[in-house]
């Protein structure tokens, strides 16, 4: 369409003297996440003839660079003045597509994101017709909101260049140092009496044999050298108020039997609260029998034996059986995930054992070995050093018992050796226990952290936004997210630093301009709204020789709590105006399909 065609086309669609909007609609396949459960082509076609819709497309990935460029080209070539993308949750890509609008010189608040993944395709995987019709209604409602949108500009607030780090394990410590290095003050709180977490208790660790205790000591020394880091042990985060960029957090310091409260103003929060080790039930794979220990107990034993003989309960250990995947990969109802670090941690510990006493016979009873990446070299080294690996089936766990002759016997069916049942006499059994989420109910309540079905905290996107949460300005890092290695935890901590810097280093943050607005023509100065706002954003002003209410946009938080209070319908929340809400409701329910009659 040439530019010369536009006025005529727009004029043809005029409604009540207003030129019709020119809206582009994009319904994303999300590579099958949506299109496997929603007939995306049917949604696209249903939207083609909606009033104001000029472009209706169904890209495979709306968020891909290529599609974003296509959208920008469409906005420019078709002179679009509104954009609607039906894809995932707005929490994931609203910013992405607002930026698309901005790059095409389209007001970002003329963009509406419609959630047809989390709230449609993923929730209705067995109802293609229902999910498709639902999508059509949702997208129509989105188009209605965009059709009635006004151009707006974001509100700007000053941000506080200080970040609260919750958790003083290796991820939290490294994050605090990173924050200080980019010029953001760090306040670190640790619930335990000491900093360092799990890693502070480790000797040599994979992949390079570096001592965990020494690494933590090095970080603590680095922290001591930085004036911009404040640490509190025996301390907890117990309250949070304010908004992203300018939070007020309440810390409770447990001091000499009494609690001391402390308020700190921070711009962002990094949660790095770590994990707990799986605690086997009594009797689970022999747990409770003398000589059956967990991986952390074994690691402590090995680290405490630099050379000479390995002993347990005063007796020399000459043979060890490691049973892998304890507390991990349990199947439905249990811990279904792989704990990821424990294969390599065990293999590494077995190499340490070989260094202590090369005569110790070591048997690794596994389901699958996941020594991924360069950890494979440790696996090879362990086998070269004489470790024996035996594989048992998922549904045939080994049995551990005390032998009549004394010592322990581990019985398994080795699927790699003609599925024969073997009983291996050993002095020590190590249950290779995985990671479980740490109990953090209080913290979850204060920060409203999203907890997944596995009990770990959920990031917004595992690949694209790996440390952000749905709570603006609150990030998660390390094993509180999922089982991972030390290196991966530190990487997440530093990602949270980068994200905090992105939020806070500009010195200001842009807030939604979606605030309340009084229609002076409708307002009669009734005053119901004046006392309803806890932020005192509404005041009386003189306007056209009348007293009416007025909302201060910088003070208004955009909750809309004043909207239903007005008896004259004189207050609108921008982005959610009376007109927009009514139109969206009507569009959502309208359908071209015949509605089935109720069963009477």
């Amino acid at each position, binding site marked *: 369409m040439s530019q010369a065609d536009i006025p005529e086309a727009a004029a043809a669609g005029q409604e009540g003297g207003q030129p019709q909007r020119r809206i582009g609609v994009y319904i994303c396949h999300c590579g099958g996440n949506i299109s496997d459960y929603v007939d995306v082509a049917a949604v696209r076609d249903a939207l083609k003839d909606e009033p104001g819709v000029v472009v209706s497309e169904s890209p495979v990935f709306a968020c891909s660079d290529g599609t974003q460029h296509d959208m920008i080209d469409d906005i420019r070539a078709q002179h679009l003045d509104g954009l609607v993308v039906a894809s995932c949750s707005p929490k994931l890509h609203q910013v992405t597509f607002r930026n698309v609008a901005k790059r095409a010189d389209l007001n970002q608040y003329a963009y509406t994101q419609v959630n047809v993944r989390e709230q449609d395709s993923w929730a209705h995987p067995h109802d293609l017709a229902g999910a498709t019709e639902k999508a059509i209604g949702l997208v129509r409602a989105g188009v209605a909101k965009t059709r009635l949108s006004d151009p707006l500009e974001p509100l700007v607030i000053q941000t506080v260049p200080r970040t609260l780090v919750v958790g003083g394990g290796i991820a939290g410590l490294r994050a605090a140092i990173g924050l200080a290095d980019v010029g953001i003050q760090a306040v670190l709180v640790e619930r335990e009496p000491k900093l360092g977490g799990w890693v502070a208790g480790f000797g040599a660790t994979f992949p390079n044999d570096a001592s965990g205790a020494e690494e933590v000591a090095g970080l603590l020394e680095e922290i001591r050298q930085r004036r911009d880091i404040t640490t509190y042990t025996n301390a907890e985060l117990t309250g949070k108020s304010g908004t992203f960029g300018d939070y007020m957090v309440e810390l409770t310091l447990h001091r000499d039997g009494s609690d001391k409260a402390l308020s700190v103003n921070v711009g962002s929060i990094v949660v790095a609260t770590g994990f707990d080790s799986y605690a086997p039930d009594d009797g689970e794979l022999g747990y409770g029998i003398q000589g059956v220990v967990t991986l952390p107990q074994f690691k402590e034993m090995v680290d405490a034996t630099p050379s000479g003989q390995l002993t347990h309960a005063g007796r020399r250990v000459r043979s060890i059986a490691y049973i892998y995947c304890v507390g991990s990969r349990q199947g439905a109802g249990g811990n279904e995930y792989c704990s990821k670090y424990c294969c390599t941690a065990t293999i590494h510990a077995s190499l340490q054992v070989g260094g202590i006493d090369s005569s110790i016979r070591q048997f690794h009873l596994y389901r699958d070995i996941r020594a991924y990446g360069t950890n494979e070299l440790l696996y090879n080294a362990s086998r070269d050093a004489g470790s024996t690996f035996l594989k048992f089936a998922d549904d045939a766990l080994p049995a551990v018992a005390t032998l009549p002759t004394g010592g322990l016997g581990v019985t398994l069916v080795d699927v790699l050796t003609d599925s024969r049942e073997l009983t291996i006499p050993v002095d020590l059994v190590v249950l290779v226990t995985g990671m479980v989420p740490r109990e953090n109910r209080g913290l979850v309540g204060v920060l409203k952290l*999203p907890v997944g079905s596995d009990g770990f905290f959920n990031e917004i996107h595992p690949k694209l936004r790996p440390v952000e949460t749905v709570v603006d300005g609150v990030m998660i890092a390390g094993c509180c997210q999922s089982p991972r290695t030390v290196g991966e935890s530190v990487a997440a901590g530093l990602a949270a630093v980068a994200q905090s810097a992105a939020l806070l280093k500009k010195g200001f943050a842009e807030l939604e301009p979606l605030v309340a607005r009084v229609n002076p023509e409708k307002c009669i100065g009734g005053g119901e709204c004046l006392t309803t706002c806890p932020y005192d954003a509404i005041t009386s002003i003189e306007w056209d020789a009348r007293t009416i209410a007025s909302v201060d946009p910088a003070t208004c938080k955009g909750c809309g709590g004043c909207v239903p209070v007005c008896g004259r319908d004189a207050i609108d929340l921008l982005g959610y105006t009376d007109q927009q809400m009514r139109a969206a409701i009507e569009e959502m329910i309208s359908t071209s399909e015949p509605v089935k009659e109720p069963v009477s």
Partner: protein
Amino acid sequence: MSGSPNPDEYAPRILVFSTINISDPGIDLAGSRHLEYPATVQTMAVPCSSGLKPSWLIHALDSGFDGVFIASDGEECAYLPDCAERTSRIVSEAQAEMSVRGLHSQRLKMAAVCSVCAEPFAKYMREFSEALKPLGRDSSAA
């Protein structure tokens, strides 16, 4: 809209008003976990449930929805400490108007849904849908 694997079965249309920061993430989580509920449930997010106009709730029923569900912030609201009371007042006002117009009060429900309340939300939707079925499609029947 079938909303049900059985296309012959009447599936009430439900409009959920969610809140952007609290209940909408909980509803997202229900989908992320593939916790199924009827596809006749549609969601519209607003910043805070205390900002809903009673007239919108009525308008939804007038427009063809069989039920309206407010997934409110409850005690977790970041904006208003008395959000639960405010939203309750909005529901009461709407129900008073519904009574005048002969709309069954059971067509409007409210419950606090937190940002991780995935399972409760899916359960609420299944239960609300079942509760609406005996009322039928004619929303004016008391």
